[in-house]
């Protein structure tokens, strides 16, 4: 589906957010590197998808109203066999609000960032970067810039973070791919420019792998419920 179709479908269903899978699909269309994943409707589909992706995998409950998955145990990580996947998928498909499961490659890396977007009444769309993962709110190490953001502003934003040493070579891990990271921040700003219907975005966590690659493993796109549908053609992928 195109980004327009994803947003319009959600709005027509009266939803105020995209599912995790839809959110990632939208972001990927703007060039955000997301983890490889497949949506499955049955335990058998999930097991087959896992085999195709290659083990280990993560299985997550997916549905339009599902968020804060780790707090509700709606995630099963590092599953290594088809029976494990089948069992986890069966359990997660039974969860409240779940209409499918995401079967995703396990992306390993101990460095987690949160990238996001918010709309301010006076300043308009503003992008955010900060320390991600489950400690995000505790650490409160985040920085904002008004979108669109020029590359030097993104660099300055990343340099202003207390967690910035994490972006350099760190405990035997390679330095983060700064270009890729900056591109993700810029891309998030572009989503907001292209779609006034998008009111907030979370990409959390964005994992910096051991080799320094940037991979988004979870995402949430919040919509302005009263927003009119996307009219005409807006190209998703932007340079």
């Amino acid at each position, binding site marked *: 589906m195109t980004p327009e179709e994803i947003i319009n479908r959600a709005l027509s269903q009266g939803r105020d957010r995209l599912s995790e899978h839809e959110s990632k699909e939208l972001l990927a269309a703007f060039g955000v590197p997301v983890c490889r994943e497949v949506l499955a409707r049955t335990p058998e589909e999930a097991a087959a998808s896992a085999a195709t992706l290659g083990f280990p995998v993560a299985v997550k409950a997916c549905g339009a109203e599902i968020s804060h998955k780790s707090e509700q145990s709606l995630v099963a990580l590092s599953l290594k066999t088809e029976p494990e996947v089948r069992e986890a998928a069966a359990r997660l498909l039974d969860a409240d609000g779940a209409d499918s499961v995401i079967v995703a490659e396990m992306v390993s890396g101990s460095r987690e960032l949160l990238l996001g977007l918010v709309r301010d009444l006076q300043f308009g769309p503003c992008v955010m970067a900060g320390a991600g993962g489950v400690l995000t709110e505790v650490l409160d190490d985040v920085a904002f810039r008004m979108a669109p953001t*020029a590359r030097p502003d993104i660099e300055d934003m990343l340099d202003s973070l207390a967690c910035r040493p994490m972006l350099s070579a760190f405990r035997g891990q390679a330095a983060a791919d700064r270009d890729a990271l900056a591109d993700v921040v810029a891309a998030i700003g572009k989503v907001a420019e292209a779609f006034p219907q998008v009111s*907030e975005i979370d990409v959390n966590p964005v994992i910096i792998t051991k080799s320094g690659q940037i991979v988004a493993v979870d995402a949430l796109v*919040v919509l302005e419920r009263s927003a009119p549908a996307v009219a005409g053609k807006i190209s998703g992928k932007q340079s």
Partner: protein
Amino acid sequence: MIEKIEESPLFKMVNPESIAFFGASNNFAAMGTNMLSSLMALGFPGRIYPVHPKEETVRGLAAYKSVADLPEAPDLAVIVLPTRLVIQTMEECGKKGVKTAIVITAGFREKGEEGAAEEKKLWDVARKYGIRFLGPNCIGATNLHAKLNTTFMRAEGSPGGIGFASQSGSFVTQMFNYLARFGTGFSTAFSVGNAADVDLIDCIEYLGACPHTKVIGMYVEGIRRGREFVALCREVVRKKPIVALYVGGSKTGRRASLSHTGTLAGPDKLYDGIFRQAGVLRARSVDEMFDICRAFCSLPLPAGNAIAIQTHSGGPGTVAADACGRAGLSVPDFSAQTAERLSEFVPSTGSLANPVDITYSKNPESFFSAIPEALLADPGIHMLLVYYLVPNAMVESPLRRMGLSDGDAAEAARSWLDNQAGAIAALMEKSKKPVAGFTFRGIMEQFPQALMARGIPVFPGPERAVAALAGMVRYRRFRERIELAARARG
């Protein structure tokens, strides 16, 4: 952005040749009377027309029954009337052809919905006649270079280089004395009040083009027209720095939100990032804002972040170096050549490292000339911070021991200290590197005053001095990034 100050709609407001004054009378307790008095006390050279329904004269000036009776359309109307009379007065000013106004009167939007509706009416009337106005609910404006002061507080000190736009009138009026003590002052300062018409952005645009303004200070509780603010600041900071004190972030709290990003987007963090993006230096306190402004007023911009610290006492020098480290300034070793030059003046008990600790000068004058000269000549040093401990009594006592009378010793000490201040200022001029001082003694003493009169800012304590110098370094970096970002945007 405007290039010439005359293009600003605020030009006539703060450079008027004639003023109609509404609300001044012969009642000395009235706010309007106080305001007229401060205007007259400063020696405003233009024509002042008090408008009063009953009085023949006000404070010795011929009064007029109505603005319609004035012999000309004045450049500015200052309105300090009861709330119910303001809109009608604006209408009359419009008919007369007045184009700028300052509405001091309160009782508008800040009083709730009804007040907001009245404020809208006021704006509509002003718009109808093409009047730009400051306020309502403000303290007015002051342009010390034009001897204009419409506030109730008497101006103090001399005109300076600090342009100021404030969402609190107190930081205009109550800073006259504060800045005068540091030997500086405002160029033009605006209290925007409710900002029904003229807002912070209009003021920054004016101050950006104002030739007397070397640096723009700003007290902010909230910004409207955010994207225009950023676009304008980016342009202005290429020419002169902007320093903002923003408060309002911590108590406003965060919004309820579905996303982490939304939850984390408290106004304090948001403004912090946007100020940086706009090239605006954020100050952490009122003192820091004016400290940074003072530094910009008289110091050349440092070429880099390397600082030399000169002291004759260990502790204060060490604390200064520590503050530098935390503020991102480097305190490097001196070149071999500099160390060699210093060794002539620093006793063996002292230190030739940075901070250079003279302990006890072999020749007291070297502290003010030969040593700073050597430090400023070091190519690896971009600025100099000096700890001053020179009460007049310290200079007087050896002079008395040499046989001078108390009066002669005091006079000789004054003259000697004045010469030392002159020597340091001359070194700064020659080296084109900023020199600043700090002291724990009174800022009103002769020596700090003599330094500040010559453009060497002196700060109460090392942390404040370092924060001010670090602000200058930050500005240089911001400006470089703004240029890069502008090029990246194409």
